[in-house]
């Protein structure tokens, strides 16, 4: 996180209400309430697809999204005495050594032993999406194990990253995926670091704002970070999952010539510090239920994700 700070990028998120301006950079951050609302909306769509997301809540604390999935990964297998392995597809790999300037006195073994080969195999993944109050963004935690129940080590996880993302990892391995303690469960997980989230979220949210498109923060964010670690987000998420409803700001409504889905309004994206309690909905279409309950997507099509302005 050694980059230059974006001017004003972490502007105040007080509950004292601020009118979000059109390109307010605070909108790239997410408050916890909105996080939960976005997750609930994602969950509804997930249920319709039966693709496995659930909401977990540790007693007395925050909740998170969870999903398990089978995927492929590159795992090490131990060679037996004769140098044979039961796996069919083998390649010799050089064990990844990320150069550092330290004088490591380590003579202890690292988690992956040198005399191994790496192969493609089926891997059981478990993904958790948590909220980070420190960075005010979502964070993706995951763990991976072979079907025999052996946990993958960090090097295997790096090996399993899609080639498109490898370069970034190779330059700054400790900045992207590392092993960390799950803040609610206390167990070892791998984490995609959240400190650069605003770098990719900001342009997306800004564009959505300018084009008066809905953006569900979690869906957008997940579609960027998920594929790095083998988690795909079907396109229907981007088109079918609305953003949580907001209290209206003073920004003008677009002319709505096509019926808008219930929660649609040209609000800045989800993270503006509006209290999510019920307030009058913008007078766009049919009477609205209280805004704190998530709305099912209406039957009228959402503007396409890469889309055109309504009306």
């Amino acid at each position, binding site marked *: *996180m*050694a*980059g*230059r*700070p974006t001017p004003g*990028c*972490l502007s105040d998120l007080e509950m*004292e209400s601020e009118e979000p301006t059109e390109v307010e950079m605070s909108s790239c951050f997410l408050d916890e309430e909105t996080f939960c609302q976005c997750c609930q909306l994602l969950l509804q769509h997930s249920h319709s697809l039966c693709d496995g997301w659930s909401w977990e809540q*540790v*007693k*007395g*604390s925050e909740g998170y999204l969870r999903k398990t999935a089978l995927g492929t990964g590159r795992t090490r297998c131990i060679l037996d005495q004769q140098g044979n392995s039961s796996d069919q597809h083998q390649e010799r790999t050089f064990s990844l050594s*990320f150069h*550092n300037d*330290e004088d*490591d*006195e*380590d*003579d*202890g*073994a*690292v*988690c992956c032993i040198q005399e191994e080969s790496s192969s493609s195999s089926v891997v059981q993944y478990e993904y958790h999406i948590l909220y980070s*109050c*420190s*960075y005010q963004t979502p964070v993706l935690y995951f763990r991976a194990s072979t079907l025999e129940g052996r*946990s993958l*080590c*960090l090097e295997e996880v790096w090996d399993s990253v899609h080639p498109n993302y490898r370069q970034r990892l190779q330059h700054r391995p*400790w*900045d992207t995926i*590392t*092993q*960390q*303690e*799950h*803040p*609610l*469960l*206390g*167990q*070892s997980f791998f984490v995609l*670091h959240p*400190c650069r989230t605003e770098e990719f979220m900001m342009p997306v949210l800004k564009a959505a704002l300018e084009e008066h498109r809905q953006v569900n923060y979690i869906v957008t964010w997940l579609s960027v970070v998920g594929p790095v670690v083998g988690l795909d987000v079907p396109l229907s998420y981007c088109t079918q999952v609305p953003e949580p409803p907001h209290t209206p700001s003073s920004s003008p409504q677009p002319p709505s010539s096509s019926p808008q889905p219930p929660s649609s309004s040209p609000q800045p994206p989800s993270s503006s510090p509006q209290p999510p309690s019920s307030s009058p909905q913008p007078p766009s279409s049919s009477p609205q239920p209280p805004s704190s309950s998530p709305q099912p997507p209406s039957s009228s099509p959402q503007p396409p994700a890469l889309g055109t302005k309504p009306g």
Partner: protein
Amino acid sequence: MADDKDVLRDVWFGRIPTCFTLYQDEITEREAEPFYLLLPRVSYLTLVTDKVKKHFLKVMKAEDVEEMWFDFEGTPLKWHYPIGLLFDLHASNTALPWSITVHFKNFPERDLLHCPSNSVIEAHFMSSIKEADALKHKSQVINDMQKKDHKQLWMGLQNDKFDQFWAMNRKLMEYPTEEGGFRYIPFRIYLTMSDRPFIQKLFRPISSDGYTHTLGDLLKEVYPMAISSDDESKRYQVVIHGIEPLLETPLQWLSEHLSHPDNFLHISVIPAPSD
């Protein structure tokens, strides 16, 4: 203030006398003697136990040695927690020296993070500092520092150099005078009697109407169980660096003086000893 600077030194130079004993089921060529070491409260187990490893490797064969890990009374010790925190949390009211068991096999994959090199410790340490600054200063101070400044923080910790460390760290302890304190206080409250490893929330040191929040205010808001009412006997101790600060202590002051080098206030809530 002279007194406050002394506090910084006392915190930095805190030590815990520890006895390391090899786990009985480890395979050795001859009997392993226990190894005694004074551990720095503010450092990390894997950073300061090279001597421990060397000592036990003398009586073991290479093939019987995997990644070293530690337990206390059956509980695996998380190397990524500061040593002082581990002691306060697990062994506060036990006799010194602190008795830790050393393992070289059967690494508990689910519970412990791997630590294959010092780079991992450095990454973890810097990551905590960055997170703390995100809370205190919206990351502005840490981002304005150069890479060599970050390195100085780490080297100061690694080499036990108080002055080198604080030459940089003092910048992370500054705040605009008109604010009266940091934006949010970096803290974690650790509980022994919970599945959840710690509680961390957003909490301001100064309220919007200028009221200075205390340690007691924090606990009331975030973990009220820690504070017993006046008429009942004290059930819990609230411990930072081995002491129980008065609940009236301003949180801002605690954050500036009793944080660990990672800039977090690590607070243990443990059962009070029954007399």
